[in-house]
């Protein structure tokens, strides 16, 4: 009973900001207030009719898709090497590959800006894709490594013994068996890229507005409930895509 109370309180504490945002997106006032006054769908209509928001959503989607594709391929290959390989400095390299998770985003953003200025990628779309891939690859490595750890290496040996080439073994045996990890890694990469603000702020060129940048700048200049509405839309997408995935791969009760 007491345990349930604690769980409920912690849950409320964690969820309260989200609930506040959702509530304010329905307020009839011209600025976000909590508790909301009245009820209206107006702000959702405004978001979906706004060329700026729609362009930002498209841009973020393209950026997330491109960087996810790169992160998924690189992360899967890196995980294979790190889990399967036997070489010197394995632990150090593994830590290095996962380090973008732990670096402060602002440090990474600054470092990438300086480096991209040098190589001429700053303010370009490929530059942003590359930066986002750096941020998201570690998540793919983690997910795929977890899948690989549960995998009986004898299965790959069996494939080779039956005459399969390395390519055939990978595509017909290894990949199907680690697919849950690869899919989870890709979805996480997509969500993290879509959500990313700090590094994007450093690297975005003129006219390149991701959705988080758009929300951020909207808040700077005006304070309309449409910002809450777009946030609510993001939460909705997360509920539809992220929660099933979370239950499948990250639920603490399964580990």
């Amino acid at each position, binding site marked *: 009973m007491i345990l349930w109370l604690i769980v409920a309180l912690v849950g409320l504490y964690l969820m309260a900001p989200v609930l506040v945002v959702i509530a304010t997106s329905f307020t009839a006032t011209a600025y976000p207030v909590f508790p909301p006054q009245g009820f209206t769908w107006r702000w959702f209509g405004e978001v979906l009719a706004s060329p700026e928001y729609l362009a930002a959503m498209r841009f973020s989607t393209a950026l997330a898709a491109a960087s996810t594709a790169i992160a998924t391929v690189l992360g899967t290959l890196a995980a294979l090497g790190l889990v399967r390989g036997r070489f010197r400095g394995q632990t150090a390299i593994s830590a290095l590959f996962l380090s973008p998770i732990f670096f402060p985003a602002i440090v990474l953003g600054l470092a990438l800006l300086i480096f991209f200025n040098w190589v001429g990628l700053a303010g370009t779309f490929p530059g942003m894709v590359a930066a986002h891939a750096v941020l998201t690859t570690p998540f793919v490595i983690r997910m795929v490594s977890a899948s690989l750890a549960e995998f*009986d290496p*004898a*299965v790959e*040996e*069996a*494939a*080779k*013994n*039956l*005459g*399969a*080439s390395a390519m*055939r073994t990978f595509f*017909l*045996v290894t990949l*199907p*068996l680690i697919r849950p990890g690869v899919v989870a890694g890709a979805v996480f990469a997509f969500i993290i890229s879509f959500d990313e603000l700090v590094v994007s702020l450093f690297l975005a060129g003129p006219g390149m507005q991701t959705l988080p940048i758009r929300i951020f700048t909207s808040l700077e200049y005006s304070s309309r409930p449409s910002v809450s509405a777009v946030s609510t839309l993001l939460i909705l997408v997360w509920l539809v895509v992220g929660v099933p995935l979370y239950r499948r791969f990250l639920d603490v009760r399964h580990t």
Partner: protein
Amino acid sequence: MTTYDLEMQGLRKIYGDSVAVDAVTLSLGKGEMVALLGPSGCGKTTTLRMVAGFVEPSAGRILLDGRDITHVPANQRDTGMVFQSYALFPHMTVRRNVAFGLRCRHLPEDEVRRRTAEAIELVGLGSFEERYPRQLSGGQQQRVALARVLVLRPKLLLFDEPLSNLDAKLRVQMRQEIRRLQKDVGITALFVTHDQDEASSIADRIAVMNAGRIEQAGTPAEIYNEPATRFVADFIGTSNLIDGVAETSGDGRMTFRADAGGVFAARGRASTGARGALCIRPEKVDICPPGVAGAREGIVRRTARTAGMMEYVVVLTDGPELTVQEQLRHGIAPREDGALVGVVLREEDTQFLVG
């Protein structure tokens, strides 16, 4: 053409500064099933994996049907391996598991289908074609693993402790089945196990391995009756090992003085003064009333009853202790603890082992 199907010549594998396999030389005749038997860590699995192509030998050669395959990649060796964990493809049905190797060979689809169906029928899984491995029992998974390699008609079958994950009863049943299938298809086979009963019942010959070396290779009866080394005598069945030195020797016969006392006649060759041990199997010692001509005398110290059999520890008047087994026949009363008994040791059942 050679008379041997598989030849291992001076195989060696070194990991860092430890020698996992050392100078393994062994030849398998056509259609022969040979068991590599030894305790864990003796190098038997490493040897098998070198033959399969999963471990690169540090030295030595492997010949399959006369062809040197030492450096041929695993997927071009034409060997069929059955793994301890079965290693079935969990995302494929029984049929697709069995067809996998045929598909790798890019055979026509109708041939793939026909041979797959035949192989599944051969192992008696005809009604399980569309099942996934997780829907099968351990024994059935084992059969799928067998069908998956038999369907390819490989030159050599390799078994890596394939029965150790099955329960005792099924294990005995699968032994006979593997033996029958292997003889039916006539494919030479190398079978790794740590279980001597399994090795004896499944194999034509046994190679006993210890610390990376083959200590002895021979038929199960040879290994049991004429162990070549102390390790083999100790590892296979139970043995009385009596330490001592050789006295006189000649003509394959010798006399032996036990450290604990007493002189014994034995089979074997050794120079005078060589240290070693006498090996005597407990069931080859006859126990009789005291005073029988040619018998030694001793006192029963411990008795233990097993099914239909009594086991005694007899301390000989000369000094050494012997474990002795006696079948309990009708009308024979078990010997009492502390009783004086006679013990007959035949020279031909008493073997000298150096070391």
